[in-house]
């Protein structure tokens, strides 16, 4: 660093310890900033302690064991009003993770599609994709959520007049009802066969790549893997007597029963997060693909690579290098943005914990600290995972 070079003075006698000595100055600056930070923290801590005593708010994390006493509309683990606050926290965390993971998958898929479509030769397709991006990313996410929840999903007709967009799929003001997959006893063999097929395929691909590197001989690994993944589970499925069926919702007196029901809050949140984030991912993907030089494509063509092979072996690996870092921050954004759930009453971590639990216990400091710690951890884990992946595909310079 250029700033650090003042320290040395080319081996001459060291400067006297005065204000003109950069070392002394640096130590004084740092000590005073640290002292100021410590003073501010100390001030806040002592005032907080006084306030807590004055307002008779208990502190500590003991409240996590107390009975919650409120219901949650979507629980993926057993939960009742008799469960503890800690359990409610867990329910909220799982709901956040579910929405974030589903949103990330859909937004990434849609984003790649949009990014590729924007570069289409087809004028109409390219313009449509551009219009999508410009409309979606310039409207606040919260407005997206309000639009889907309050203006589209809530005014839908009741169960007796449900919309049926696809056979077996129902849409009404109580949510989206999908056929639920039901697995019978023999299904275990099916899943085992599937897992075995995936593992064998992975092994096959790695082996084929090694052999190609060593001997130059090609092996149709991908086709064999595809055949393996289709045929092995299919065999297990038929051998087990087709141990799987879809359970469709049945119309009852007031509402449908059975099937898999997705709450309107959940549907609105996933829709909003996906459509909004996909616009940003689309731009990232477009920039990544455009960054690959024309010469690369021409070189691939002159080597006789086909269009698809060029894309798979030349364009995408280079584009990914530019796509991954900003894609990571979009994925992190989506995870953090899932906290907007609180505005449409989807019971995510913020709604359940920073909302209801905080109101009931009044322990603002602990509750907000836990919530922030969770998001910081999620951010850290996601960026570590993506950094690891990024390091793997990064340019290996000699």
């Amino acid at each position: 660093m250029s700033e650090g070079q003042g320290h040395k003075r080319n081996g001459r006698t060291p400067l006297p310890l005065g204000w003109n000595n950069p070392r002394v100055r640096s130590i004084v600056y740092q000590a005073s900033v640290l002292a100021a930070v410590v003073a501010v923290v100390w001030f806040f801590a002592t005032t907080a302690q006084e306030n807590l005593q004055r307002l008779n708010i208990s502190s500590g994390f003991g409240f996590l064991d107390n009975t919650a006493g409120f219901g949650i509309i979507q629980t993926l683990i057993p939960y009742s009003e008799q469960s503890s606050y800690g359990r409610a926290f867990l329910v909220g965390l799982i709901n956040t993770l579910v929405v974030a993971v589903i949103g990330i998958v859909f937004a990434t898929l849609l984003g790649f599609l949009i990014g590729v479509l924007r570069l289409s030769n087809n004028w109409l397709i390219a313009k449509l994709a551009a219009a999508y991006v410009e409309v979606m990313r310039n409207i606040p996410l919260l407005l997206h959520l309000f639009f889907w929840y309050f203006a589209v999903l809530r005014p839908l007709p009741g169960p007796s007049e449900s919309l049926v967009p696809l056979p077996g799929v129902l849409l009404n003001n109580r949510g989206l009802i999908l056929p639920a997959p039901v697995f019978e006893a023999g299904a275990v063999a099916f899943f085992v066969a599937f897992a075995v097929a995936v593992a064998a395929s992975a092994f096959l691909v790695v082996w084929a790549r090694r052999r190609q590197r060593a001997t130059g001989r090609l092996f149709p690994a991908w086709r064999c893997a595809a055949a393996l993944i289709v045929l092995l589970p299919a065999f297990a499925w038929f051998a087990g007597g087709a141990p799987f069926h879809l359970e469709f919702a049945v119309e009852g007196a007031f509402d449908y029963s059975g099937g898999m029901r997705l709450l309107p809050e959940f549907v609105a949140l996933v829709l909003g997060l996906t459509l909004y984030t996909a616009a940003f991912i689309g731009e990232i993907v477009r920039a990544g693909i455009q960054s690959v030089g024309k010469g690369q494509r021409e070189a691939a063509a002159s080597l006789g690579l086909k269009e698809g092979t060029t894309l798979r072996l030349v364009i995408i690996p280079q584009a990914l290098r530019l796509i991954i870092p900003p894609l990571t921050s979009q994925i992190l954004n989506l995870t953090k943005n899932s906290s907007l759930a609180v505005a449409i009453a989807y019971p995510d971590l913020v709604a359940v914990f920073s909302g209801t639990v905080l109101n009931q216990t009044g322990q603002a400091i602990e509750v907000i600290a836990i919530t922030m710690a969770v998001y910081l951890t999620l951010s850290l884990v996601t960026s570590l995972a993506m950094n690891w992946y990024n390091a793997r595909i990064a340019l290996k310079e000699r």
Partner: protein
Amino acid sequence: MAMEDVTGRPSPKIGMRASPVVWARRNLFSSVGNTVLTLASLYLLWLAIPPVLDFTIFSAVWSGTTRDACLGPDKGACWPFIWANIGQFIYGRYPADEIWRVNVVFALGAVALVPALIPSAPAKRFNLIFLLIIYPLIALVLLAGDRPGLRPVPTSEWGGLLVTLVVALTGIVVSLPLGIVLALGRRSSMPAIRMLSVVFIEFWRGVPLITVLFMASVMLPLFLPEGMSPDNLLRCLVGVALFSSAYMAEVVRGGLQAIPAGQYEAARAVGLSYWRTMGLVVLPQALRHVIPGIVNTFIGLFKDTTLVLIVGIFDLLGQVRAQLSDPSWTVPQGALTAYVFAALVYWVFCFGMSQYSNFMERRLNTARER
């Protein structure tokens, strides 16, 4: 999908001046795959456009003074609802006879902003100092009152677009200097300063804005002495400012990293101190590099201002939601009308800013190529 779409070739421009038939053959029907795609998107447009136009224009109710005008079958958007509440959407519950103060603030802002945005306009330095330091102070005095001759207006009566702009503007005015300081701190050679900056930046970037706002509105009062409790809007402004300065710091850091080491060394060689090096040599170049990034941060901040409604502040979107629950205007299509209107307002602001950012980016690129 036809494979050739993904290659990223710029769409052929030569056809633009050819006859429409030739152009269409080249750009819409160049292959079987493309023809299928074109027809599919035309079908999609045919499905989407007519209902939207019908709702917003043809079947929409344009005049009327009560909700009765909007009732009835096959009625589209209820625009009279918007006209009737437009004052609320812009000023919130700001007292009617004091609204001139808001208008003066808006007008002054526009007058100062327009020359600041035009690169060739004169007196840029004075203009920016006015916009970033003097104007916010004038706006504060005018809006809050609390000075002789001006009736104080508590922030609980502010609302609508006014609050949206106040939050966004405070965010940018505070986050720019704070972000610069943090970015310099993160690149400092002093370990304690660097560590503090990194922790500060990464903390605010790692948590969602909602939790920051919750912290500002619920937790902050616990950390302040008894009796000293700033109002809700001010607390949220603090949260928004800290939050956006962390993002601004990362943008500025990108600019600092783009400055070649030779610039630092040259400044040192002519004997400039650290602050003079930064202020006279490095920052002017670095900030110019990242104007698009700064504008993008501002767009994000502008959209994020909507989140203040969750802690009970009526910004534009919050005011729209509040007016929706007004029983004298309850109509079935009310929510859709109101959100389309709000989306349009936000879109105009954000799209305008992003176009400006694109314009600056092009300008910077051509300047660099020359």
